[in-house]
């Protein structure tokens, strides 16, 4: 009688070596993605017959609901049931449902790209390539077997309170945060509680070394849990600087006129990828494919950019003029499989450094 354990590590053990570099390297080994699927009248009709689609997602709730309503408005008769939770919770829940043979999820989105690798290796995803993905998405953002592709991207930059710090005095890099004048002034989120921060911690420690975190721990930082928390504390004026946090919350706060500004560190900004996938045993297979296909269109991608502060790699979307375009930002390289392998050691090392 054991707990139905979802050990991503077990699943990954064999495949991790192959899967290094989420999308790119596996492409060389297996390249058998199915033909791209357009949104056809037949697909719409079949979806309307099913009537509903279950979307498990870790997107911010207001945005998830906005996407659902926009889809329902476009395809009358197909209702989207949003089950929103943190990425890890979504992952555990699907694991438990599948362990007990409950097949309820149609389409999934996770902010932790490693989850998709696990599901793919378990063989529970359906190969499906929307037309937009085939035509407008760069190769490193789609799975070679057509199981998933980057639905949304966000960054994990630095932010500061504009009423407390002048633009010219603000730090320009991660290393600038180590200046003694910022003691007691910095807040950040925790890799044990946030997948985004786990990914960011991995990328930062890989590119600029653990020495950065060792010194940062001596700055008496205020430790928060979720990646969405630091920008909020900056807006409140509780701390002047956020060493990390999700960019979309920062953009939303800034565009709502609150005193926050984003800094893309000169060392590079951690990149967080959130892919979407359809399940093989989806109870509403056609509605699932319709939703999946629609979510990669310029319409939905633009909606995520405009209302959710997300980033997109769709070639035809337009960034808001006031935002720094993705192409102008130096990005750290995503490597979901490596994050997966090192998750526990990263969390442990982090806890030892920061004391919680």
């Amino acid at each position, binding site marked *: 009688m054991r707990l139905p354990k979802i050990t991503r590590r077990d699943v990954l053990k064999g495949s991790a070596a192959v899967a290094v570099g989420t999308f790119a390297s596996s492409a060389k080994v297996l390249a058998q993605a199915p033909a791209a699927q357009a949104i056809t009248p037949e697909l719409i009709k079949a979806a309307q017959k099913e009537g509903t689609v279950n979307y498990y997602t870790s997107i911010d709730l207001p945005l998830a609901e906005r996407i659902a309503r926009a889809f329902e408005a476009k395809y009358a008769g197909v209702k989207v049931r949003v089950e929103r939770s943190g990425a890890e919770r979504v992952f555990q829940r699907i694991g438990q449902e599948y362990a007990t043979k409950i097949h309820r999820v149609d389409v999934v989105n996770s902010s932790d790209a490693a989850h998709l690798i696990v599901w793919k290796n378990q063989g529970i995803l359906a190969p499906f390539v929307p037309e937009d993905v085939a035509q407008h998405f760069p190769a490193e953002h789609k799975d070679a077997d057509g199981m998933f592709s980057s639905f949304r991207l966000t960054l994990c930059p630095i932010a500061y309170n504009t009423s407390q710090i002048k633009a010219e005095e603000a730090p320009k890099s991660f290393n600038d945060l180590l200046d003694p004048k910022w003691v007691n002034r910095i807040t950040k989120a925790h890799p044990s509680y946030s997948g985004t921060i786990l990914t960011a911690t991995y990328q930062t420690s890989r590119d600029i070394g653990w020495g950065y975190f060792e010194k940062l721990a001596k700055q008496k930082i205020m430790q*928060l849990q979720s990646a969405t928390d630091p920008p909020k504390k900056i807006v409140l004026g509780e701390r002047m600087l956020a060493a990390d946090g999700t960019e979309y919350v920062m953009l939303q706060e800034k565009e709502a006129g609150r005193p926050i500004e984003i800094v893309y560190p000169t060392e590079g900004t951690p990149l967080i990828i959130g892919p979407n996938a359809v399940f093989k045993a989806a109870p509403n297979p056609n509605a699932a494919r319709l939703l999946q296909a629609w979510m990669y269109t310029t319409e939905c991608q633009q909606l995520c950019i405009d209302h959710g502060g997300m980033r997109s790699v769709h070639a035809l979307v337009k960034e808001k003029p006031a935002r720094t375009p993705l192409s102008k930002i130096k990005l750290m390289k995503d490597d979901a499989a490596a994050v997966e392998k090192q998750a526990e050691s990263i969390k442990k090392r982090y806890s030892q450094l920061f004391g919680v």
Partner: protein
Amino acid sequence: MTIALPAESAVRRRTFKIDFSLPVLIAFAAVLCVLIVLPMSWLAYYSVVDKAGQFTLENFATLVTEPEFRGPMLTTLILATSASIFCALAAAPMGWLVARTDLPFAKAVRALVTASFVTPPFLGAIAWELLAAPNSGLLNKLYRHLTGAEMGDHIFNIYSMTGLIFVVSCYTFPYIFVLIANALDRIPGDLEDASSMLGGRTWTTARRITIPLALPALLAGMLIAFLQAMTLFGSPAILALPAGFHTMTTKIWSLFQFPPKPELAAAASLPLLVLTVMLLRTQQMILGRKGYSVVGGKTGDPRLIRLGIWKWPAVAFVFAVLMLPVFLPYFALINAALSPIATTLVTPENATLKNVWFTFGLSSTKIALQNTFILGALTATLGTLMALVIGYISVRRAVVGHQALGFLATAPIAIPGIVLGVGLFLTYTQPPFVLYGTLWILLLAYLTIELPAAYQQLSSAYKAVGNDLEDASRILGATRLQALRHITAPLLRTSVIATWCFIFVATVRELSAAIILFTSDTRSCRS
């Protein structure tokens, strides 16, 4: 008074004469076992096995040797001890003033204490964040405004051990206050009259009669406050991490972050459970001797001491204490709800209802509210029904083994919330009952938590009704269940309604907390 069985059941009696008492007993015992024994057994099991399911004491060894657990244990101990002392310092004089003196607004004071009693601890913590965060807190801003101090200077820092002790005390002091005030209410005036007749002055009487009689209640209250502070999760969940430490409850919770370590969580929960049981036994022993405090009978009303010139300082003291758990936090929360930035004072120019609309405009908030009420009603109905039957069986000693039922129904009192949570997680994430991630697990949790109170209310109601009427109906040939339905149930109507309301309110209050923290997760019962 004659209460006869209605004719139609008299007819049915002949055709339908099986006594269901025993099956009912077995059924309820089974339900109670599922509710209580099952989670606690899994808890015990998990604490002594390793990942492979082999017996081991490794989990407990880790608990004692690893600094990552020893730290939180020490923190929890300090937190609970200091909170119970601070609570006693504030609550004891207040209880005395309200119960034994002519303090003006005594009724209002009792009502306000109740208000802090029903404030969910996490909400209090959020409010105090708004007030006393070192940089953005309203009180610190006021301090800097008044003194012209530099940004970064502050007088309060809620993200600290002291801050946590303070907030926890704010929401545990009602336990001591209620116990003290009730004990003092019950002390008869006769003893005090005797003392003053023998020449004791007001203060001598208070010192030598009233205070010693109230001491057991104070001690019991401090134990309860200790327990509450030790097992509290809401306030530490918000304040401990930013302050840079863990308490036992937040540590246990962190063990459920991916990858979950249920074995360690179970092992860490057991000491909390054992300590709770021990402290509750001690508390019962102390209160069990309260008999001597009513030795003079219940004849005389308590005599109120005239405060004289101390009247207004006393009022000032009481309201100063109440500022901390009630006035200031609720002011901060209302301000945050109406202000564009939570820690900016609201003015007629910048007031906004955007936050309010945002919260209630989300369809998921509506579903959550709807679910809260459905779940509250379900829990209340099921809980009242169970308490009704179990209370009957144990008060009337209906069947052999009734003691076990009564014991099981009161046992959840001794299970701290976080420990029950761990037990429920272990139980309902595996066959035969997979309920994790659904609302049903919340139903089970609240049913378990509220059962003891419901059971105690209804069993005392049964005791008040008496046996005779039921016996009469049974002599006339009714089975137990028929007698219960036609005689006892109607007589208990008021108590039943009261119990239902009690569970409903308690559940909805707790649930609202769960839902504010975890909106999306609690919506799953929709399909």
